[in-house]
């Protein structure tokens, strides 16, 4: 079988001294798509932030191993440059910084860290044009300040644009589908599907199974109160849709 890309081992995470995740085990192999589902407040975002290395999220025990090495000590930017990408549930605005400028700086920071040649202006322009078209993002949005005044859907599509341009090895998407209408959802799904490859893995956090109609996961996990309550194939998502989360709470 393919080798593990991400191994989360008995992970405990606390915020401000309160433990939120109580021992998560999860292995994602190269090329796999995993979905994490769960009610609000179950710890889904916490898991994504811990993977990305948010300084407010303290790993109190357990480990996160990426490409065979623990990344607990790695800075967020080092994790990013190693190929971990997080599409945020609530993308922030950066006033006065153009989307295009920001994205080029990010791409070149990552390339530099990996010892690759930086993208020239022309190369970058060609790349972003292609990806923007894929994500149905018009040129005006590229020149505006990062996320400033963007609609909810535009912000989410902008996250996937960044994903497409940065082409990470592990893409973690935190509720990218929330608040999207069906057309936007399809656009996002098309974008994600076009990026699927045997080397690239996805962790999709979602509240609804509807996204999973468009992006077929290999595995589905249900998070409940900071623990994985159940794992299964994509049929688990349908079962959840049918029975609701309460069904799982009873079994735990």
């Amino acid at each position: 079988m393919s080798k593990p890309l991400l191994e989360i081992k008995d992970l405990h995470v606390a915020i401000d001294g309160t433990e939120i995740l109580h021992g998560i085990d999860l292995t994602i192999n190269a090329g796999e798509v995993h979905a994490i589902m769960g009610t609000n407040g179950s710890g889904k975002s916490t898991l994504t932030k811990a993977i990305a290395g948010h300084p407010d999220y303290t790993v109190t025990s357990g480990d996160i191993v990426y490409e065979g090495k623990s990344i607990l000590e790695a800075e967020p930017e080092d994790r990013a440059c190693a190929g971990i990408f997080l599409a945020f549930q609530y993308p922030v605005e950066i006033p006065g910084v153009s989307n295009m400028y920001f994205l080029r700086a990010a791409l070149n920071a990552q390339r530099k860290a990996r010892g690759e040649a930086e993208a020239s202006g022309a190369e970058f322009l060609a790349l972003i044009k292609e990806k923007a078209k894929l994500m149905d993002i018009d040129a005006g949005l590229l020149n505006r300040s990062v996320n400033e005044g963007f609609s909810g859907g535009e912000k989410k599509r902008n996250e996937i644009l960044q994903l497409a341009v940065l082409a990470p090895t592990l893409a973690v998407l935190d509720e990218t589908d929330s608040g999207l209408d069906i057309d936007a959802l399809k656009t996002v799904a098309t974008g994600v599907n076009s990026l699927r490859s045997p080397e690239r893995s996805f962790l999709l956090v979602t509240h609804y199974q509807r996204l999973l109609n468009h992006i077929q996961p290999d595995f589905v996990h249900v998070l409940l109160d900071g623990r994985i309550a159940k794992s299964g194939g994509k049929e688990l998502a349908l079962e959840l849709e049918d029975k609701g989360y309460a069904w799982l709470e009873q079994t735990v």
Partner: protein
Amino acid sequence: MSNETIQSLADQEYKHGWTSNIDADQLPPGLNESVVRAISAKKKEPEWLLEWRLKAYRHWLTMTEPTWQKPTYPKIDYQGIIYYSAPKKKKEVTSLDEVDPELLETFEKLGISLDEQKRLTGVAVDAVFDSVSVKTTFREELSKQGIIFCSFSEAVTDHPDLVRKHLGSVVPYTDNFFATLNSAVFSDGSFCYIPPGVRCPMELSTYFRINSAGTGQFERTLLIADEGAYVSYLEGCTAPQRDENQLHAAVVELVALKGGHIKYSTVQNWYPGDKDGKGGVFNFVTKRGIAHENAKVSWTQVETGSAITWKYPSCILKGDNSVGEFYSVAVTRDYQMADTGTKMIHIGKNTKSTIISKGISGGHGDQSYRGLVKIMKGASGARNYSACDSLLLGDKCGAHTFPYIESHNASAVIEHEASTSKISDEQVFFLRQRGLSEEDAVSMIVNGFCKDVLSELPMEFAVEAQKLLGLKLEGAVG
């Protein structure tokens, strides 16, 4: 201009912490009438100018140092200051070969090699080293269009009528404690005159440096845009690291005659003192412009240096339909203090002013925006728009806004907006998640915050400003 252009060129280190060893021809420390006379004599000044200096000196004796500002500083010993110092010259300098090699090296360390400047940028540079102008370039080319760009001393000799007519016309010798002191003892500076209808074809720039230990700097700059003329002028400073405080009390006067337009840009990076606030320059400057009918005076400043920055580049909107603008970025960190802002005095009808002020504070830095918008009785239809935004990089720094509005004409429209924000951890994390280092993330957020001001700067200064902001903020967040 775009952030991208700025960033792509901005990548150098602050390396200006050194002192050069050129023997200075200088007066002993101290101030009295004979010192004022000696300065004037050394510069072979005409009688009227000596008289003007002496009037200023005598007036200064009757004044007391102001105390209303927010920053406090140790008492300045005015008798301990050396009021005149000139680099030793072998003879009159006509080419770079004749300039003291160490002096040239000094310029090179600053990255302002005159030849390079000439060849690459097309910027005319009037370099002031200590108190005497060493070299003026491009003057011939400018003079073909009737533009005069020279040191203040040369202007006194070669264009006495222009100097006499305008000197003190915007900042009178009685104006304020530091401007009056400057009027008595000013060393040198720049002079520029653009004749009617001429658009100056290049950005004019001056680099000031403080050098000989204990030498106060009393620069005097006078720019005149005659009717319908335009000039963009750049001023940049950087100072060597040293232990004692250095007073820098410059005066800049701008005269924009009917339909004239003067754009004055500053990037200020004087030595700010060490981590504990020891040493550093006191930057107490008086800058003011007068705009006659249909004229425009624009100030853009990026203030990143000095232990204390205390200045209010101002506009007197005397003529009908005249316009005043003030765009400012001020950065304070460690123990730096800044009390800066502007005054817009609306006298003419339909006068318009815009104030955009961005204050960034980190460490124990403290800054105040102080702005006066004054609408006189006759200024019907006057308009002002002010926006003052502060960005805090930590919780030990401070930002204060003191807007003063005085309106004596009911038809005036005055808008004022102010905001204070903290740099958000989520913004920083977002950028780091995309691969930027924490410092680059902060720098990007701050440069975005300042964009409306940076975009007012001419290209080469925007680059320098961006660079300085990045350098200033290294390790300032926390």
